[in-house]
């Protein structure tokens, strides 16, 4: 008897969910007795609310929204993090010669509205304030058209970054990871009560995802074919490039080599929460226990690579 589970993704089916899709397509979930349905997300999707309200038992989510949810006392927790590092990186064109966050002073920094807090933390880390820069909501075209000097993007989204990467004068980057904000990404979240009551299912889920990502890492072309079978508009060549970056730089890091797939440490969460508390985004009394339950990671057999 298969156990029915729904996984709500934060975004459309693409390379960032390759491991989960492979686990589904290769039957890794089924092997564990799970009948998983993966639901695509989108800009009008809110996975924290959807998990809370039972649209899905498990979802992927990003660090900021998890912290804000915890700040409101909402009963969800992370039990793993597919991306070991949050990829958010600030790009500038070579012409503008912005080599470090210190060079941001007086510059126009473009990002989505939601990235304001991250920028604040990065600035804070470099002894600056939001007033020292001009924040503009902008995307890559804004950088290329000279509306901003720096723009936030994810290096994993290879297709998006093509115009920057191909800039004749080169480009410079500052990632949040290297600039004082070390949180992870594509966290697996579930309701707190579910983590308590059905840890067995979550463990099996995590083990299947682990297997899926490992398979995707070893067979990227096949993985992308599987993604494309669920997402007809995927451009396989671009997505393959993305997947390779995702696997090599974000799924598998030193930390997974040591602790295994999807690892989260309390210390990292505590540090992250502190940076957000410091700039007043969340209550200072929040701790890793409010956002993280380590029992699933501890119980799961995880690949170390």
């Amino acid at each position, binding site marked *: 008897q298969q156990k029915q589970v729904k996984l*709500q*993704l934060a975004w*459309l*089916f*693409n390379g960032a969910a390759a491991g989960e899709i492979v686990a589904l397509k290769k039957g890794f979930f089924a092997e564990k007795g799970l009948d998983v349905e993966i*639901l*695509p*997300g*989108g*800009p*009008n*999707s*809110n996975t924290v*609310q*959807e998990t809370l*309200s*039972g*649209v899905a038992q498990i979802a992927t989510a990003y660090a900021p929204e998890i912290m804000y949810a915890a700040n409101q006392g909402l009963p969800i927790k992370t039990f793993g993090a597919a991306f070991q590092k949050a990829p958010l990186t600030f790009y500038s064109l070579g012409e503008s010669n912005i080599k470090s966050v210190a060079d941001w002073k007086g510059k126009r920094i473009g990002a989505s509205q939601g990235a304001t807090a991250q920028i604040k933390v990065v600035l804070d880390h470099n002894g600056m304030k939001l007033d020292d820069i001009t924040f503009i909501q902008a995307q*890559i*075209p804004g950088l*290329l*058209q000279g509306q901003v000097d720096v723009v936030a993007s994810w290096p994993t*989204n290879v*297709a*998006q970054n*093509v*115009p920057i990467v191909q800039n004749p004068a080169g480009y410079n980057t500052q990632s949040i990871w290297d600039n004082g904000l070390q949180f992870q990404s594509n966290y697996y979240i579930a309701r707190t009560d579910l983590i308590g009551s059905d840890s067995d299912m979550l463990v099996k889920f995590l083990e299947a995802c682990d297997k899926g990502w490992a398979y995707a890492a070893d067979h990227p072309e096949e993985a992308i074919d599987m993604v494309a079978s*669920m*997402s*007809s*508009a*995927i*451009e396989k060549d*671009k997505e393959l490039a993305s997947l390779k970056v995702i696997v090599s730089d974000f799924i598998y890091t030193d930390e997974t080599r040591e602790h295994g797939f999807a690892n989260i440490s309390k210390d990292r969460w505590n540090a992250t929460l502190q940076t957000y508390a410091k700039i007043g985004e969340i209550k200072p009394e929040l701790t890793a226990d409010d956002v993280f339950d380590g029992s699933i990671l501890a119980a799961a057999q995880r690949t170390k690579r």
Partner: protein
Amino acid sequence: MSVDRSIETAAPLPRIWSILPGPEVMRALGMAVLGLSLTLVLWQLVVTLFGVPSYLVPAPTDVAGALSRDLPLLVEAAVPTITEAFLGFLLGNTVALLVAVSFVYNKVIEEMFYPVAILVKTIPIVAIAPVLKIILGNGIEPKIVIAALICFFPTLVNSVRGFRAVNPQLLELMHVLSASKTEVFLRIRIYSALPYIFSALKISVTMCVLGAIVGEWIGANQGIGYLLLQSMFDFNAPRLFATILTASVIAITGFAIVSMLEKWVIRWDPGAAM
């Protein structure tokens, strides 16, 4: 100052109504193609002259390339979106008409619930998307409801207006005949409202396409909305614009169908009183 010759419509030429593509329809089609072509030429000119980069706005030629390359993809994506839009159109307009009828039947209901309708209209979809997903699941239903929500309001406003824009002398006649409110509705108000209702349907037929697209943004792996997001994410501007064009073709087709229906239904002169 040129003299108004629009009076020519009163000239005694035989008019042929038909919903089958007659010469009139072919002409309209030709004109539409001409208008769109002109727009494309202008667009191409602007893109070329000002050197607009293709990641921002691709040239029509690029879009044409994407169109021909991705045609199967676009057609495949159009199917669910058309379904959602059509069902949303039916649902939204039916509800709007029913609410409008209740408003016109009872002024108190109108005064009480018109503001509520506006309130519902001002709720951004993103704010209630999770609620819709819980109640309606992940299938086609929430998309239909979003399309319906989006096209509900124009039809409500127009049909309330239309149901009231009745020749007062006809109301007097019906009064003398002791017609019930329902009879006045079925025999007089509906006809008086038809020009308004068709006008509203023309608005909502385009809105419901947009509604279905926005609906797909709460989570989908098919449909025009999905394709739009994926193309945006991939920075595939030609495909993005080809997708937008596909949405437009759906909307324009819907508009044309409603227009033909209108011609077919309203055969009297809506400005005339007899």
